[in-house]
């Protein structure tokens, strides 16, 4: 068994939009142990983002769950930045993410495209 980290990106190109993406994991992955969100524009993700995350058809985070609760700053130790999922079985390996940008009127005027990255810490069989 070995730990690997997977990264999946989505692009947010419009304010007040919902972006849905489905990602797939390899069959050799036996469990998902951690989850983390980052962005190339941390401020927008922190202030405007919320998401629904589904793994193997099961809702892990419901709609409206704020992105800032799944982020870790640079002051957090690198090996403690992931949100602990306690060895979640991947099932069919499908990760569905429904990201919602909720920019207010002021932010909409200053909106720039940004990337949201979903990191997963997984255990893979040898």
């Amino acid at each position, binding site marked *: 068994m070995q730990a690997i980290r997977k990264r999946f990106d989505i692009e947010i190109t419009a304010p007040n939009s919902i972006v849905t993406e489905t990602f797939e994991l390899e069959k050799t992955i036996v469990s998902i142990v951690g989850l983390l969100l980052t962005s190339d524009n941390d401020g927008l993700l922190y202030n405007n983002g919320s998401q629904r995350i589904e793994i193997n058809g099961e809702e892990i985070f419901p709609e409206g769950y704020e992105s800032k609760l799944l982020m870790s700053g640079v002051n957090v130790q690198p090996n403690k930045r992931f949100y602990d999922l306690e060895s979640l079985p991947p099932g069919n390996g499908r990760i569905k993410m429904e990201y919602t940008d909720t920019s207010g009127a002021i*932010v909409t005027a*200053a909106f720039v495209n940004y990337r949201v990255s979903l990191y997963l810490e997984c255990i893979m069989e040898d």
Partner: protein
Amino acid sequence: MIREKVIITKLAISQAGQIQHFQVKIPHDALRIIGIELSGCYANNISAAQPVQAVAAVAAVKMQAAVQPVQAAAAVPAIAVAQARQLKVASVRVMTSIDALFRQTATPMSYTASPFVGNVRLQSCENTNVFFSGDVYLSDENVGYGDYSVTAQFPATAATHGCKNEAYLVNTPGKTTILKGIYRDRQPAAGQVPATYTVNVYVWYETIITKL
């Protein structure tokens, strides 16, 4: 298999002193309630609209002030206030930052009070009764406190330098079908412009799942 799930309740607050009652419906399959998380955010978030130049200018002045306090104090109004005024509607959040800068002598060891806006109480219908009371802050103004590594290009913000969020641990039986909640806004009635904001209450509970 035991799983953790979460229920989100959003409260829109628009007046100083507002009292909001709410209910959180707990599913029948809930074994126990294990955690509560609170977060507050401006309804019309201005911090994200704050121009990058203004943030960089503020950070630059902070850095300079750590070395040359007198010159830095003179440099603050011209740069930062002018940019803040460009955002005519951004009075609350931007001016908070600017005020914070003035209050601080712009050293990383200066403390600024974070905007406390109210508190949440939760009551179970079972024996545990009132089992949670927590404060809501809209931001952490001291995220860069004592951090001398902050630069103009990489200023300390909650998004980049914030700690990992953790839920408050509670242990309440899931038999209760409803949690009664009350939110009291604690902003001063006079003086500052009251912020319009949203409070999110996250109730974590345990349940048994048979499907893998």
